[in-house]
């Protein structure tokens, strides 16, 4: 039996009106990779904030035993000093500073004069970068590197602080598959060096492949800690623990529906990069959506998925967009967002907090935001009608909020996504483009979103789902287009599609120009 490097005993933490954690137990053995699973709002992040001193000693109940003695962290500095380093989902890097500057930020390498010794810093940075497998110049500004590489810089930064217990909050959420694989490999190497890792993740297949043990948290309580080496420790077992019920069907049954006439057809759509003229990001894409159909667009990061959608939606991405768009067989233009909206096209963005919602505005006004023209006469908004509309969507979309006057920022991820969907449904769009509609939301809420998608299709709308999760596309779509390096490389009926076949198409490079700089588009947006 290995030593426990960390024992969090009977941890409770309350906020006004909410008990976020109650008697949570987390025991982590030295040198293991320990995963923490739970639905959003289960209390995982709160627990990690308790551990890392964001909530200082005295602001929670229970004991933390670290490395054999009780730890009383009063701040992040305390916990880092003890070798506990947390890497948040939103990376804490300064884009305009160099790799080395970021690695030693707050921990600068000083010469005897008190000034920073940059030669030493850059040299040590190079060594740390080698350890995490990052081959870049240490004086490159971080903003020029992709998310995957930035994640590695965060880990290098942790190593520079002599980390013993590394906490990663959703480390692969924003990474593509190869970057994820690299990161997981790195965690294994760190484990060999004796560094213990705690990893919060929603990606169950990753947990299954990398974690030694998994602790499941639900509603602020520890459900169980399972040993992943046992044969019955499967993804379904984890899901069962997370949601407290068997989720035989992760995707709702399709409502019986017929696929009708063609709603939207895009022909030969080509878009250039906004700041690098001549660089083609979307190359001659053609696709169509029919009434009552759910169409998937599968592509790896950097394939141009979001770029395709945003350039179609009022030219909100890129420049020199060319190609034709047809609605009900007639050519339309979508030169501005409002033109797109009035042509019945809706686009729900992938990052709802940053691009989709006004978090300091209430649910009601977020729902009406894209369709004020329906609520106004001669420029005056009918506030009462607006409230009625919001209440209707709160009911029909099952948005869990005490009131539609609640700020959108106070809602959970799943409910925020329902607000975004309500907003677009209220525009009366008949083609809804949903970009990563279930990213960062928990299993239960995902099911609800899929149900809404089904309902939209059953109502005769055309739905386009952009997703990086193949099971999701296979579970919800009728047809799936694959996008690789800006080109549509294929389309498959869901009945014939397999993950392997799709992945092959998603990685198909252009014949004449091999070695395209993949993965760069997504990063410099």
């Amino acid at each position, binding site marked *: 039996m290995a030593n426990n490097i960390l024992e969090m005993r009977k941890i409770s933490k309350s*906020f*006004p009106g*909410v008990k976020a954690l109650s008697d949570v137990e987390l025991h982590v053995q030295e040198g293991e990779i320990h995963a923490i699973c739970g639905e959003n709002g289960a209390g995982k992040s709160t627990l990690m904030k308790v551990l890392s001193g964001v909530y200082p000693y005295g602001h929670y109940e229970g004991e933390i035993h670290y490395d054999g003695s009780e730890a009383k962290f009063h701040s992040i500095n305390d916990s880092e000093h003890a070798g506990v380093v947390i890497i948040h989902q939103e990376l804490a890097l300064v884009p305009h500073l160099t790799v080395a500057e970021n690695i030693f930020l707050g921990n600068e390498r000083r010469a005897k004069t008190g000034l920073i010794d940059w030669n030493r810093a850059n040299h040590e940075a190079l060594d740390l970068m080698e350890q995490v497998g990052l081959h870049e110049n240490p004086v490159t500004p971080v903003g020029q590197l992709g998310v995957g590489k930035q994640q590695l810089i965060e880990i290098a930064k942790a190593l520079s602080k002599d980390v013993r217990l590394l906490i990663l909050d959703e480390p692969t959420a924003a990474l593509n598959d190869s970057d994820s694989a690299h990161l997981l490999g790195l965690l294994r190497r760190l484990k060999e060096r004796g560094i213990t890792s705690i990893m919060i993740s929603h990606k169950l297949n990753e947990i299954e492949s990398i974690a030694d043990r998994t602790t499941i948290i639900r509603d602020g309580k520890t459900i169980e800690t399972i040993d992943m080496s046992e044969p019955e420790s499967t993804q379904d077992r984890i899901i069962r623990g997370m949601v407290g019920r068997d989720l035989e069907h992760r995707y709702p049954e399709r409502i019986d529906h017929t696929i009708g006439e063609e709603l939207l057809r895009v022909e030969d759509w080509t878009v250039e990069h906004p700041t690098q003229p001549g660089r083609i990001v979307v190359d001659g894409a053609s696709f169509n959506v029919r009434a009552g159909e759910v169409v998937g667009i599968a592509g790896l990061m950097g394939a141009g998925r979001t770029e395709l959608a945003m350039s179609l*939606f*009022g030219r*909100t991405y890129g420049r020199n967009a060319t190609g034709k768009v047809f609605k009900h067989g007639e050519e339309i233009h979508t030169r*501005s*967002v*409002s033109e*797109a*909206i009035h042509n019945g096209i809706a*686009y729900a*963005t992938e990052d709802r907090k*940053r*691009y*989709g*919602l*006004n*978090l*300091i*505005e209430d649910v009601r*006004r977020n729902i009406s*935001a*894209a369709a*004020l*023209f329906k609520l*106004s006469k001669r*420029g*005056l*908004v009918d*506030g*009462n*009608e607006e*409230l*009625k509309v919001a*209440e209707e969507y709160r009911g029909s979309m099952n948005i869990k909020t005490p*009131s539609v*006057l609640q700020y959108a920022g*106070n809602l959970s991820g799943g409910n925020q996504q329902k607000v975004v969907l309500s*907003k677009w449904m209220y525009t009366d769009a008949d083609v809804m483009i949903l970009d990563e509609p279930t990213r960062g939301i928990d299993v239960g809420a995902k099911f609800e979103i899929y149900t809404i998608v089904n309902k939209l299709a059953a109502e005769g709308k055309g739905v386009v789902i952009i997703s990086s999760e193949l099971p999701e596309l296979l579970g919800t779509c009728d047809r799936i287009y694959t996008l690789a390096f800006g080109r549509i490389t294929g389309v498959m009926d869901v009945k014939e599609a397999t993950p392997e076949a799709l992945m092959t198409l998603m990685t198909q490079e252009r014949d004449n120009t091999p070695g395209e700089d993949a993965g760069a588009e997504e990063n410099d947006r």
Partner: protein
Amino acid sequence: MTGIANVRELLTRNLRQSGIFIAFVAIVALFTILTDGTLLSPTNLTNIVLQYSYILVLAIGMVIVIIGGHIDLSVGSVAALAGAVSAVIVIKGGAPWWVGVLAGIGVGLAAGAWQGFWVAFVGIPAFITTLAGMLLFRGLTFRTLDNISLSPFPSEYAQIATGFQNGLLGGPGYDVFTLVVFAIAVVAYVISQIRARRAAIAYKQTVGATPLFIVKLVAVAAVVMWFAWQLANYRGLPNVLIILAVLIIVYTVITTRTVFGRHVYAIGGNLTAATLSGVKVKWVNFGIMLNMGLLAGVAGVIFSSRTNGAQPAAGNLFELDAIAASFIGGAAVTGGVGRVGGAIVGGLIMAVMSNGMQLMGVEQSIQQVVKGLVLLLAVAFDVYNKRRAGAR
């Protein structure tokens, strides 16, 4: 579901908004005591209205600028230029008084359009655009006036800011007309409140308890009528108060009920989300700056009328008073939050403090220190509130 919100819920939900009213009442009470009641005398109340009206006009425009996520440092210079052009046309050129008024407002609009162009269509941050404008329009003011003051305006022009509507209905020692106008306003207010409440109930919204609603109406009516009584006992209804009341009503409707107003809040709250919701961000930004120019022009006309002339240094530091009024009135530093009513109360807080300290004979230097600290504390309160909300 129709619900009844209790007092506490109403207060806590709008702490940012209700806090400002409580602070206002406290400051009025404090200075009433410190000045032995002089603050609330008929003469002094009338003075406060006359003396700070142009700041309140600027604050209305400024709060909209701030909600949109911008700032405008040039309003003092624009107001000065508006007054200067008006003075040159009327005093030097002999044009009728109303031509001067239109010219002043036109100058404001032109300045607003100029700055709106740079902010909205070229994408220069408003801070820089209006910092440049502050110098630019001040320089143009000096050129227009040849570095000398111009005065006096014809009496009709001066009446805009210094005149009163009174004696129309006579009255023994007090002005009945003023009281009648205010009484009509109060009745209109009560009717509109009752209508809004009925509509709210019809749409099954949460409303305040009935007794509380009545208490609120009675309290507002009593304060307003008392204020009218004080004015009636001096010289009656100031013209600027009428202008101000119209502007407050119009801009409250614009910010709360129009699509344009909603779009201002949307771009201040989340620019990208607003863009992707079909808001024509450039035109909204242009409108915000154009409107600020318009109100700066109005403020310039009122100020030149009040001082009965145009001075090269007129309007100096007006922008800071207007910005302070907006922030004290609950606007958020990062945009997306704020109210016209709040900015007016914020401006009145600044006005009562300045006036109260003047009555007490406090030195100018100390006055500035106090005003600076009040602004700092108001924004600190906003930041603290946000942190408390964010900690959950």
